């Protein structure tokens, strides 16, 4: 167990490599109750001033990835906004900034009803892996065929009233289930006792997300990075005004970009290692791991934009050796099932 922003979380249950591979091949269940859940009852045009997602254009039953930004365009958090009803939303945020996110959102929406539901006992369980729909279907009344990628619905799961979304942090077909504590425990048990499912911890969650290029807030992105530097500009629609939008419009071309790299060795890089190109330091590693799916170590970091193209040769300076690496397009692992049309 490790302390993660005040939450006691398991790094592993059986072994990180086995959990990682099981998630890619079958299905794993993750206790992600540390993540923040902010329930918002608001008129969409008002909510649009606070989140980068276009809440007004988001159809009911859909989810969208985006950010809470400060006035300077720096990321206070990365989030998923889920539209449950015309004026009801669930904003899923990270554990570390959850409390400040809640204060930020409620402070900027004085006329809305904003509830920090994860602080009031709501938990979350993720079921992830190519077999997750087969595991979930007999335990839920949801129409999984029509619950496409980044859709959300209210549903019964393991006999409990829950919010069910087809989202995740692994790159595999998968679901996130939101419910009050006593229900979420039943959901976790319901999934974990299925013969195809193994529980997985933070360790596998980290290597799975790194293979996909998903950033980890506080490591790869933060208040000092804007979404364009983080190579997440594709998630920004400057079709409405929100806190930080003026700064993003005024910002010139980014002077650095977040990239993924693949090494040719099992030896891993570490956060903070310098990245070199043609004999000079050009950037830094923000996170790295051994990739069980690729059999070599991988990572991500920031480079000048002119070096951010796939194929750029790098040297990552670890304390023990110089690791040759190549900038690679995301996802680094290409066989993820998250977008499958036939769950």
């Amino acid at each position, binding site marked *: 167990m490790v302390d993660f922003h005040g939450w006691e979380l398991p*790094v592993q249950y059986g*072994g990180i490599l086995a959990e990682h591979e099981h998630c890619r091949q079958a299905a794993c269940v993750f206790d992600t109750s540390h993540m923040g859940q902010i329930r918002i009852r608001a008129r969409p045009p008002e909510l649009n001033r606070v989140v980068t997602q276009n809440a007004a254009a988001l159809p009911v039953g859909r989810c969208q990835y985006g950010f809470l930004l400060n006035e300077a365009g720096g990321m206070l958090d990365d989030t998923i906004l889920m539209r449950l009803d015309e004026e009801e939303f669930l904003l899923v945020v990270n554990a570390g900034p959850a409390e400040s996110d809640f204060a930020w959102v409620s402070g900027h929406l004085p006329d809305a009803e904003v509830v920090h539901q994860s602080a009031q006992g709501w938990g979350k369980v993720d079921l992830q892996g190519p077999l997750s729909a087969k595991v979930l279907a007999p335990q839920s009344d949801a129409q999984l065929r029509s619950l496409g990628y980044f859709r959300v619905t209210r549903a019964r799961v393991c006999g409990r009233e829950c919010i069910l979304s087809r989202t995740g942090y692994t790159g595999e077909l998968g679901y996130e289930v939101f419910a009050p504590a006593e229900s979420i425990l039943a959901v976790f048990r319901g999934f974990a006792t299925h013969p195809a499912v193994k529980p997985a911890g933070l*360790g596998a969650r980290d*290597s799975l997300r790194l293979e996909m290029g998903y950033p980890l807030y506080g490591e790869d992105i933060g208040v000092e990075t804007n979404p364009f530097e983080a190579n997440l500009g594709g998630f920004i629609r400057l079709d409405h005004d929100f806190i930080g939008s003026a700064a993003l419009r005024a910002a010139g071309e980014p002077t650095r970009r977040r990239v993924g790299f693949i090494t040719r060795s*099992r030896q891993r890089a570490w956060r903070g290692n310098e990245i070199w190109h043609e004999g000079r330091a050009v950037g830094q590693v923000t996170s790295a791991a051994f990739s069980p799916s690729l059999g070599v170590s991988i990572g991500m970091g920031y480079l000048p934009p002119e070096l951010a193209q796939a194929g750029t040769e790098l040297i990552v300076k670890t304390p023990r*050796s110089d690791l040759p690496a190549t900038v690679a397009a995301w996802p680094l692992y290409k066989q993820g099932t998250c977008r499958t049309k036939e769950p």
Partner: protein
Amino acid sequence: MSKIPEGLLYSKDHEWIRVEGGVGTVGITDHAQHALGDVTFVDLPKAGTEVSQGEEACAVESCKAAASVFAPASGRIVEVNASLADDPGRINADCYGEGWIYRLELSDPGELSRLQTPEQYRQMLASEK
């Protein structure tokens, strides 16, 4: 409960050494491999390298951490377990057998008296809990 086979000597840093005819075979203990978790990489030493007792001889990396492997005795490294390059998981599966890391030609067998017997190592682990 960690496995602590008889017939080996143990360092405070959780290495083991099996001495046969002036040559010591070295690896990490069951306690160490369990604490590290899945080993993903072994930075093997080079054969021919001279090491002193207590000096770092090589390193292992796992999904969770990196750890130095110290020389339990002084000498010259005469052989390394090259199979660990492609299959470092042998350290988890069989740390006292196929997961051995290197062999050392001892330069001062008298140093072995500074290492622990299985019983002493067992007591050290118990006192650390």
